[in-house]
């Protein structure tokens, strides 16, 4: 039960700067997800909060108290390590009981027995209590590591990819359980993942991290619909967002978009005063238009205004498929139903649902604007309000 703050935190390892001036404020009882590619600095942030590493600059506060000088044992945090870090010479039971036997969190053996049994049942490892870690599968070890963290009542749970090694079915199940548990325990949780589905479904708020810097912090809708730059847009979404490199030409009141791959098919941008005024401030009017695969439409017959391309690949991913169309050098990913019968390199005609696009500056890759931004903002504010009332309820 704690609020966590990182203020101007910088961490270096030799010449490498792992964290660059990181500022984060994690609310009490919040489920906060750190999301980013491998090597972004997610684990370093957890280690700094836990006290395993100490920042070179900046301060870390737990409940308003600066904890830079407090060692991990006295910070009352629970952590799940990515490589599990179980005690190899102790049984599953003793591993889970370990925090409760430490001088800091000492409990009597009766209490420990109840707590361990409960945590093990929660993690569905109650039949494994007498085994050694070497006798477990990776997924089971990971659940033991989770159990060891959940057995006590810390200020904050720090979880470093705790579901990464579970099979898909168990992962989905545990994802639900974790969310439920966090809601019931009402404990602040910081969760590291590189799985976008996990981030979207679990998080109250998400922080996107790249190369030691916080790129964007927000609720999942905000980050999905209004990504701060192309990097975030590409990270959030599977299949990845399409980025069309376009020149914008002003004609009368609006803009026409000339896609580099199909300059003969100008696309008229629908009127949006806010978006247009931001585009006008651009000097060279070069933008990347981001469009999600579900907003691209295809046809195998010529359609008025459609751009002609060829079928590059067709992959089935579960209940839907990804059709990749090639237009000159550019590839466009399109969501399609399963079971399409098609030949590679056959012609395909694509049209864009242009009123759903996100516009990025082609030079800086920063977000310029999107259609219906005010609508999206309204939605985001509603959801944000929701997650805050939820946190508020837990207070009571």
């Amino acid at each position: 039960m704690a609020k966590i703050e990182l203020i101007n935190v910088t961490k270096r390892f030799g010449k490498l700067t792992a964290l660059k001036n990181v500022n984060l404020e994690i609310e009490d009882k919040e489920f906060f997800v750190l999301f980013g590619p491998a090597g972004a600095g997610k684990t370093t942030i957890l280690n700094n909060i836990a006290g395993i590493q100490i920042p070179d600059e900046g301060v870390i506060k737990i409940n308003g108290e600066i904890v830079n000088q407090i060692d991990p044992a006295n910070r009352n945090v629970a952590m799940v390590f990515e490589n599990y870090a179980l005690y190899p010479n102790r049984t599953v039971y003793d591993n889970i009981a370990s925090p409760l036997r430490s001088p800091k969190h000492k409990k009597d053996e009766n209490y420990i027995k109840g707590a361990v049994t409960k945590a093990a049942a929660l993690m569905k490892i109650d039949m494994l209590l007498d085994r050694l870690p070497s006798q477990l599968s990776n997924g089971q070890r990971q659940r033991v590591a989770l159990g060891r963290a959940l057995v006590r009542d810390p200020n904050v749970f720090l979880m470093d990819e705790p579901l990464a090694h579970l099979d898909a079915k168990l992962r989905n199940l545990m994802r639900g359980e974790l969310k439920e548990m966090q809601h019931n325990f009402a404990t602040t949780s910081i969760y590291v993942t590189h799985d976008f589905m996990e981030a979207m479904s679990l998080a109250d708020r998400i922080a996107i991290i790249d190369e030691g810097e916080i790129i964007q912090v927000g609720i999942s809708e905000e980050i999905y619909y209004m990504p701060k730059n192309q990097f975030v847009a590409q990270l959030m979404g599977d299949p990845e967002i399409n980025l069309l490199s376009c020149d914008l030409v002003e004609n009368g009141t609006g803009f026409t978009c000339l896609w580099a791959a199909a300059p003969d098919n100008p696309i008229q941008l629908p009127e949006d005063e806010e978006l247009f005024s931001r585009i006008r401030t651009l000097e060279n009017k070069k933008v990347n238009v981001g469009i999600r695969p579900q907003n691209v439409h295809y046809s195998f017959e010529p359609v008025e205004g459609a751009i002609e391309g060829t079928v590059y690949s067709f992959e089935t991913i579960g209940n839907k498929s990804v059709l990749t169309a090639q237009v000159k050098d550019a590839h466009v990913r399109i969501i399609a139903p399963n079971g399409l019968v098609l030949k590679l390199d056959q012609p395909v005609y694509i049209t864009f649902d242009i009123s759903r696009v996100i516009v990025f500056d082609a030079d800086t890759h920063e977000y310029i604007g999107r259609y219906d931004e005010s609508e999206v903002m309204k939605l985001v504010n509603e959801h944000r309000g929701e997650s805050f009332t939820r946190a508020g309820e837990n207070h009571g």
Partner: protein
Amino acid sequence: MTARKRLTAILQNGGLAIYAVFALFPLLWMFILTFKSDAEMLTTTFVFTPTLVNYQQVFFHSDYLRYIKDSFIVSTGAVLISVLAGVPAAYAFARYNFKKKETIAFQILSFKFAPEILVVLPLYMLYRQMGLYDTYLGLIWVYQLISMPLIIWVVRGYFEDISVEIEHAAQVDGYPWWQIFFKVLLPLIKPGLVSSALLCFIFAWNSFTFPLLLAGIKIEPITVAATKYLAQSTVHYGQMAVAATCSALPSIIFAIAIQKHLVRGLSFGAVKG
């Protein structure tokens, strides 16, 4: 089982048996010598009248037990100090990065490279000057050349096999550093620590050159003292055989004990792998 397999088994076991006889025969012969009188020593091989007079002489009419005590004190002392100083050093080599780390580690290992006889004369001069000559402390100190490198290098390997996250996990679990060391790390390095410490004990016990030149008047480890049975005029082979056999016993017992502890892979399964 086919005839062919049986034949291979017979040949293999026969070969091993021949090797065992070859390896153990000197020990056996020495053991036989302990029961011979000086008169029969060189005349017969297996047929003789057994006698316990050699044992009697060695245990009751010489300082044999004092020599054993000296050997025991210097060997145990050397191993204790090597363990107390070597384990923290091994931890530092395994966990911390400092300038010239590998150079220093290699330097420590290189203490074992030079033949003892090469360094023992300058050491003799120094020991005379410093008053360490013929003292327990002096021998224990010089035995660090034998035991410390071994302990540091073996235990370092064990520490490196333990994922650092296990220590972090223990910190987060609420343990202070000394409990992490004794409760978490020590059980994991135990096989390496025990076997290297026992090996060091054997090496220190068997050491001859150092005690020969750096001690030998007040303090006489058994290896040096055993030569006393080669007197100027007479050679008491029987007594010497008793002394040698009995002083080899600790080495043999420890060698058997090590085998039990040479279990590796205890840290298996701790981390993702």
